[in-house]
């Protein structure tokens, strides 16, 4: 597939628009196939559930081809600097761990959130730990305890209490 073509200037970490276009096309094709299977089962009747998925995913495939064409036409134009993918990946990992810890462990909202705030603020910060650690700690504790108390005591929304005797 043409999606594997690398634009000359984009040998950095970031994938270029052509790769993105190729992936969009591939995903679109998969979804289109699924839509066809559904329509095969339920029919293409305009009043039935089968037609709209075929139209939308078909449109997806066409538009992704249009985008791919646009990207190839513009490939000489340098895209903005690649940016780093390390920080977003770390953030995403932190988010997923946070959600799983909240749901599947007895850590509780306050501890999990405080830990998440510390990790995330550190990941996003460019300043040395020493300068901001006290501030970050204060925000972590304040935010997590504050949210927990407001939600559970004032609003009656249940958040996992966890191991802390709150």
């Amino acid at each position, binding site marked *: 597939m043409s999606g594997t073509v690398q634009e000359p200037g984009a040998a950095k970490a970031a994938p270029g628009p052509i790769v993105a276009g190729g992936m969009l096309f591939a995903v679109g094709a998969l979804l289109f196939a699924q839509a066809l299977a559904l329509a095969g089962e339920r029919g293409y009747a305009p*009043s039935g559930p089968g037609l709209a998925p075929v139209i939308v995913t078909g449109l997806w495939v066409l538009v992704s081809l249009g985008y791919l064409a646009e990207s190839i036409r513009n490939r000489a134009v340098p895209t903005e600097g690649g*940016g780093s993918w390390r920080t977003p990946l770390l953030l995403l990992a932190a988010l997923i761990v946070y959600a799983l810890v909240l749901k599947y462990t007895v850590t509780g909202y306050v501890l999990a959130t405080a830990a998440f705030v510390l990790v995330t603020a550190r990941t996003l910060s460019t300043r040395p730990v020493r300068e901001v650690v006290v501030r970050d700690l204060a925000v972590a504790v304040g935010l997590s305890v504050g949210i927990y108390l407001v939600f559970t005591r004032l609003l009656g929304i249940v958040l996992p209490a966890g191991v802390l005797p709150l």
Partner: protein
Amino acid sequence: MSSLSSLLDGFASVLSPQNLLYAAIGVTIGTLVGVLPGIGPALTIALLLPVSLQLDDPTGTLIMFAGIYYGAMYGGSTTSILLNTPGESASVATSIEGYQMARRGRARAALATAAIGSFVAATISTVLLAFVAKPMADLAVTFRASDYFALAVLAMVTVTAMVGASLPRGLMSLTFGLFLGLVGIDSLTGQARFTFGVPELLDGVDVVTVIVGLFAIGETLYIASRLKDLPAKVAPLEPVKGGFAWLSRQDWARSWPAWLRGTLFGFPFGALPSGGAEIPTFLSYTVEKRRSKHQGEWGKGAIEGVAGPEAANNASFSGVLVPLLTLGIPTSATAAVMLAAFGYFDLSPGPQLFEKSPDLVWALIASLFVGNVMLLALNLPLIRVWVKVLQIPRPLLYTGILVFATLGVYAVSGSVVDVLIAYAIGVLAMFMRRFDFPIAPVILGLILGPMMETQFRRALLLSDGDLSVFVTRPLTVTLLGLAVVALALPHLPKVWARLRGGDAQRLSFAEDD
């Protein structure tokens, strides 16, 4: 009951201490999120939904949400003028001349014309709303499925016609939204579509989940990918050093016609499907520039360039409420979340809303007046406070956004799967920002797609499969005809400009958040 007496009843209800408090909370939060980067009115309302449900007061909650919408506009104009960083797209036009005024030591005049202009525009357009809403609702009672389908087509066409710089990217965003709208149980037949065996997907993807993913998670991940370009702190800017006059006599004279013209652009464009605030603000900017007797000042801080777009911006909100309240059709991302909020309270906007909950509707409309008075009082004197807000360290701000985003989804659904879906959409949104895809069409596709499909199929089921139902009803035909006009309309300025030999500025559809 006439609109006027209903409106007076609305005032009576809004002026209760509790509702005044809701309005005050709303405009304060709204101004705050308008000033802050990375968080806009749509996201804020989405995150406040679980909280508001516990309050069990639909009227108060909706008054608060309307306050957030308005407040965010005021907040957005503040940052546009002082920092040249429009917090939302509708403020982009304001920032062009507004920032120049601030650089030349006329920040206070710019802020004043923006605030007073917003107030004037909001007042006039709310009166218009009050008088248009009821007749519109009465008309909407007669709307049949085929008419709603034609309306959805009209809305969809205007969205696609204004998808921004690149047609493929705009359409891709829209298509993604349409696809998200397909996920789940088909409402008419119970058939599951694109659920990939995940039971949590049977109900479809909730608009709150999508908004949290697109805006909160997506924006934060994107910022994280370009951390090096991000200043650790906002440049300390303190333009409001003493000795400023408010508006001079000449400023007033130049501002008020621009306010009125801006209002006239804002209201109808807001009321049109997919109107939103971007088009009228830029239209107002263009018209003011063309009419101005002070051509030499443009680009160096012409006050009309602030007065007009800000008025248009605020007037558009009352316009947005017309189709939202009378037809249940949202024309912007924020309106889409407000529609969801109605749904959570088991209220369906549409003609029945005026019959079933007139108190709520009129209190909401009256609250717009009250909210604007509050904003006027809140913004000009407290401008230093809002500038301070901008100095929240970015790492903590974005961390906070992630915490509230996770909480918002988790508290609504109690499901970790929904949280993970929001994260996944956030990852996609990060790439969308990276490759310059517009975000707002995703939400409009998510809302309008199912509306269009459902009404189309309902109309066919009702006519026993006879397609002529779409060409025999005069109202349906008229609306479909308007859709054709809307398809051609955005190209008219280009054609016009080319005929006059000038430069074409294409109307474009940008972020609504």
